[in-house]
């Protein structure tokens, strides 16, 4: 029971009621895990989930990524009719079927890969993105089949293929079938190459195991997002094997660049322009970003002149 005094207090300093604790809806604020800055969710979304304070690239959902990557003109999603199927009736501490339902509910996606046919800066392409929140972005039958169908569309339309990886590796619940997705996706990429079409692989945080050891490393150009964890074996497994602490920055993008595994590291906010300008060179086309680049150049020059 509240007294007359408490009723008089402005609501923001009332501390007893349960309601007041929830006046801020969840998800309005986020905290950057690196610089710990408290960030306004809307602003973070606008910034493609890159921390405006320290430029840390937070994970981003596959759909949000592709919506931000593709031009707003109508694009077509490939392989939406494909649904996972638990042929082995796999059961660990939980049933695979239940894990799937849970992941579908949590992400709103049917499986861990989205594939779209659309345009970026007017440049047509097929683009795929892994949904890490869906069972760790693990690669099972649906992921492999969607990937393959995406490549088939790229071949039919004679356009490039781009893939954003974010995955822990093969999906154990599909046992050897999931291992075979490494073969399947690599085989599909081989076909793409035979048709003379480029593949740009973007490795984002994290890209590990079977996905790293197949499609993700096979780009004509491999791009990494800053500070992404990329590797074959997980750091914990390596630590247990070699029994020593791993060096600072081990298996991070900058480490991979230094060891010659990726071609370049690109900020997420510059990804569209960068990928398109690379693809335009590989496919002998004028640069679609030229106008944009020229405009920036002019502005910069004006600033210089004004100074």
């Amino acid at each position, binding site marked *: 029971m509240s007294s007359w005094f408490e009723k008089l207090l402005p609501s923001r300093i009332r501390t007893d009621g349960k309601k007041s604790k929830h006046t801020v809806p969840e998800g309005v604020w986020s905290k950057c895990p690196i610089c710990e800055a408290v960030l306004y969710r809307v602003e973070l979304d606008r910034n493609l989930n890159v921390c405006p304070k320290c430029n840390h690239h937070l994970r981003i959902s596959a759909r949000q990524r592709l919506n931000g990557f593709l031009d707003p003109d109508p694009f077509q999603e490939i392989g939406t009719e494909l649904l996972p*199927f638990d042929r082995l009736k796999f059961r*660990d501490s939980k049933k695979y079927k239940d894990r799937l339902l849970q992941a579908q509910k949590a992400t709103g996606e049917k499986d861990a890969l989205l594939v779209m046919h659309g345009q970026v800066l007017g440049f047509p392409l097929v683009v795929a993105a892994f949904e890490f929140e869906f069972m760790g972005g693990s690669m099972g039958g649906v992921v492999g089949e969607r990937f393959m169908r995406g490549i088939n569309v790229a071949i039919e339309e004679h356009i490039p293929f781009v893939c954003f990886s974010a995955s822990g590796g093969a999906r*154990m619940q599909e046992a050897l079938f999931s291992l075979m997705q490494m073969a399947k996706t690599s085989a599909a990429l081989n076909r793409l190459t035979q048709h003379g079409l480029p593949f740009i692989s973007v490795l984002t945080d994290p890209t590990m195991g079977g996905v790293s050891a197949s499609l993700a490393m096979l780009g004509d150009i491999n791009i990494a997002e800053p500070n992404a964890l990329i590797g074959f074996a997980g750091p914990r497994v390596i630590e247990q094997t070699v029994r020593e602490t791993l060096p600072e920055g081990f298996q991070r993008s900058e480490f991979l660049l230094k060891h010659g595994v990726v071609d370049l590291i690109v900020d997420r906010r510059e990804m569209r322009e960068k990928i398109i300008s690379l693809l335009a060179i590989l496919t002998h086309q004028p640069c679609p970003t030229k106008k944009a680049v020229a405009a920036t150049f002019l502005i910069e020059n004006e600033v210089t002149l004004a100074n």
Partner: protein
Amino acid sequence: MNLNFLEFEQPIAELEAKIDELRYVGNDNDINIGDEIVRLQLKSQELTRSIFSSLTAWQISQLARHPQRPYLLDYIERIFTQFEELHGDRLFGDDPALIGGLARLNGRPVVIIGQQKGRDVKEKLQRNFGMPRPEGYRKALRLMKMAERFKLPLLTFIDTPGAYPGVDAEERGQSEAIARNLYMMISLKTPIICTVIGEGGSGGALAIGLGDKICMLEYSTYSVISPEGCASILWKSADKASEAAEAMNMTSQRLKELELIDTIIPEPLGGAHRDVDAMARNLSSTLEDILNTLDKHSPDELVEKRFQRFMQYGNFTEET
């Protein structure tokens, strides 16, 4: 406990010990106990047959990793002639965990590649327990291309817990090395036969595992992760390895039923290590037969069929 026998084989071990004891007594005395020995030997065989007729996936995975299980070099010396081991990836070094070279199978020239485990402690370390580093996979790639260039069939032999999870392996691009092999093998214009002879461990196995025919020795295993690894991730306890082995369908029998492999090569009673010569003969004749059937196809046909095969793998349903 006899260490040459696995835990589930202990009843056989006891019987064998009794037979040895009788033999020893027999040498000392004039009493003829030959009949008794024969009787016990028959009984031991019967017991082995009965135990081996209903092995669990976990027991088979122990057999696949049996310390006495024949490794690639044991087969090479029995099956092939003129084996010439070739070394190095021409980029960094030579990996003793993955060997390869030129040889002849019943007179026919072939290229061989496969993982090699070590027998004693020193050799185990030298061969890194059959866990290749990137230079191993890149050596394999070089030999694959050599097979294609000189129109030689490629025979691969899989026996690895997995690709090496180490700092140096990561630095030199373990992922890329494996991925590149998958990418190249699918379109390699020469017949390829892959045989799992022991452990088929994950990506490290698949990196030499894309072929026109995939065979497994009866008591070998092939899986996306080791049973222990799977148990510790999904059950959060490595003690559940036997459940994990069962759930992953990693035995030759199950994988044949699932149409992921083509041929099971039968092992001698009690496993390959009980009679290596007999095992080598089975393996040799299977390889010979398959090569003869692959001869009927042009390299282009083989590549197309191989491509179609790997493209059809995967379980999913389609909404209508």
